[in-house]
């Protein structure tokens, strides 16, 4: 017998009421913007719920994957930079690339040289030497190329392709990085994966921030083209609504695909692995391979969502990917909404982002009140940077939300529905 999903309906109605109230207060232009951003976060959250809720994979390097995907979008979709293509830059970069390929090929060949009978310690030493020489050679060619490009053209620019190709490419880059990460860390315990993803995120950000020739670094790249007409053509509300509908279609497609996959034999296998790894392995399932699959698919979705998010902002600023605010905001979305429940994740993403956006003026208002009351009652002199401190309150609240949800409602607001086979 099928009962009415009361819990879902009540929560959804509450969310709609909240959004409507905010709309009436801040006006449609800001409201649609908030919803579009929330939708992009929902895509990222769907990617994370696959990793965490389905496979129990611990990815705290979300911002690294998002930044990489956004960079992929910039590289493909930003208008072509003629100064770069007419200068000496492409040739020099080409030679660098050739050097890299040759060096890597030689290094790999040496590392396989045991097949022709080279003893192991010697092979190890030779591999390291080859890798070091490759590194130095590439570095030696890249540095002059980078300075030439920066002098002649500023940065390499893009290829001028449609944005959706850029998103797909960005997602693929994130998935590729996920493959590399997964190969290294999936066999180990979950904590190591958390540490490794945290590290890779920092490295990706450091690279994007400092490779001025490639990303313009702290000078930032803007405007990234939109897949729909920009506010300059249509006005804020219409163009942002169009963007919102593009992302909403993406969410619906992803949701349907994920639900289908989850109900399929493949999904059953994934649940089996998550719930009892040993038993699944005993049944002949290749646990690490399946997890690697999950990690790559999840990172692809995270990348696409992140690329959409950055495209909406139209500015690519490598130093804006803050792990504290963004990565863990997405984590709150997933565990509050219900890890492993796609609907719950989307709901959590919308709710948390709406609350998050509104929390900034709320925190400022609250602290202003505290300042006034404290001054009146105790003659307390508030510190001058109270406003910046008030915003730190939000980081505290994210942490508190994580701790409380994990402690009190580990399943989230809409817990995953356990399927029963009877």
């Amino acid at each position, binding site marked *: 017998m099928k009962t009415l999903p009361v819990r879902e309906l009540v929560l959804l109605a509450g969310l709609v009421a909240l959004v409507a109230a905010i709309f009436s207060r801040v006006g449609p232009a800001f409201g649609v913007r908030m919803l579009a951003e929330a939708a992009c976060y929902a895509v990222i959250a769907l990617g994370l719920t696959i990793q965490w809720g389905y496979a129990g994979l611990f990815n705290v390097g979300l911002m690294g994957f998002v930044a990489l995907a956004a960079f992929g979008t910039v590289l493909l979709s930003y208008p072509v930079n003629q100064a770069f293509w007419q200068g000496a830059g492409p040739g020099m970069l080409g030679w660098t690339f050739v050097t890299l390929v040759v060096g890597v090929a030689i290094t790999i060949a040496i590392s396989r040289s045991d097949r022709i009978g080279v003893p192991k310690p010697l092979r190890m030493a030779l591999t390291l030497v080859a890798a070091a020489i490759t590194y130095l050679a590439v570095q030696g060619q890249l540095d002059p190329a980078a300075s030439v490009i920066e002098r002649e053209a500023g940065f390499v620019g893009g290829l001028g392709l449609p944005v959706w190709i850029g998103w797909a490419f960005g997602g693929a880059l994130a998935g590729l990085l996920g493959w590399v990460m997964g190969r290294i860390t999936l066999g180990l315990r979950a*904590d190591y994966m958390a540490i490794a993803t945290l590290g890779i995120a920092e*490295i990706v950000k450091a690279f994007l921030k400092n490779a001025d020739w490639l990303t313009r670094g702290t000078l930032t790249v803007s405007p990234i083209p939109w897949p729909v007409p920009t506010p300059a053509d249509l006005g804020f509300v219409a163009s942002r609504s169009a963007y919102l509908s593009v992302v909403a279609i993406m969410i619906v497609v992803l949701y349907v695909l994920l639900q289908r996959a989850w109900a399929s034999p493949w999904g059953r296998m994934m649940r089996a692995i998550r719930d009892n790894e040993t038993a699944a392995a005993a049944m002949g399932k290749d646990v690490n391979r399946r997890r690697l699959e999950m990690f790559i698919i999840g990172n692809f979705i995270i990348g696409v969502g992140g690329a959409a998010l950055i495209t909406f902002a139209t500015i690519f600023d490598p130093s804006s990917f803050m792990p*504290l605010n963004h990565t863990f905001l997405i*984590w709150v979305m997933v565990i509050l909404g219900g890890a492993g429940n796609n609907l719950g994740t989307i709901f959590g993403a919308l709710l948390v982002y709406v609350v998050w956006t509104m929390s900034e003026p709320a925190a400022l208002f609250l602290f202003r009140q505290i300042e006034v009351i404290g001054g009146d009652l105790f003659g307390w002199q508030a510190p001058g940077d109270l406003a910046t401190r008030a915003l730190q309150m939000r980081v505290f609240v994210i*942490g508190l939300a994580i701790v409380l949800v994990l*402690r009190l409602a580990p399943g989230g607001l809409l817990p995953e529905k356990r399927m029963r086979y009877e």
Partner: protein
Amino acid sequence: MPEAGLLTVLPMNELVFFINKGIIAGLISGSIYALGAVGVTLIFGILRFAHFPHGDMMTTGAFFALVLLVLFPGAGAAVGLPTAFVLLPIAMAMTAVFAVGIDRVIYRPMRLAGSRPVVMVMTSIGVMLMMQGGIRLFAGTGTRQLYVAADSKDIYRIPLGGRDIVITEPQLLLFVLTIAAVIALHLFLTRSRMGKAMRAVADNPDLARVSGISIDHVVRTTWLIAGALAAAGGTMLALDVTLKPDLSFNIILPIFAAAIVGGVGQPYGAIAGGLLVGFTETLAVFNWSVLLRPLQPLLPEFIEIPGRITFVPTEYKIVVPFFILLAVLIWRPTGIFRGRLNL
């Protein structure tokens, strides 16, 4: 110059520069990492999860020292040492109690509810965010000095011909403190009843429990030690440089690298790992051309030593501990000292 004997070519100046910028700097960051990594590795070994807020625990300890500094500004002048160092034992005690309190309020209920280790790690990340937000809320986002006006940052110079070997008072105190902490920890773990109980729990918690060891006491002692050492590391770091509230992410990665390199659950390994990571990090961004430059007259003309040779550009310093970590995870996941991989 036919008579340019080896002595005149001997790069005394450059060697001293190397000692200053390479050896001493590596020792300093290595000691700080070691003090943090011991706590991380103990928690890893006994509670079996990666303790992400450890960097913030260090910052918290330093802020306790700052509060004490404001309350008793005259304490240092009475002894003749930096005030924060004199007050350090109190700050260490406060942080230790603070760590136990966090365990009581947050981790213990989760442990009793039988949460999986992965959930514990996520909880610890939540705690990290709370601590980070809390620190900035109460102390602001700016940098501070951990000094009062009466303190003098003494600088010792060891003359060696041209250049001097320079070491500041806080750095010297840091070395002394690290060595003292290592010896005390060693004696505690090998001689005392509680230390032996801790090692027993780390080896096999079930066996330890049935042989009458109180897990609760062991856990509390773990947090006390981890908190105290974190406070020591954080305060000494703040004394050497400045007190920054956003330390945590930049320091937690090298600390984890140190703990894993040394072998999870191995306090001595953590110390060795901390020093290893600290040295590698410093030497990777060290400008080696300073050492090579004196060789220039000996080389043929067509080889020119560039002005700057580093393994890694300075802005990628954070990459170094990560690559150490990756290399260890790939080739020797148990770490140098054979820690336990699957706790």
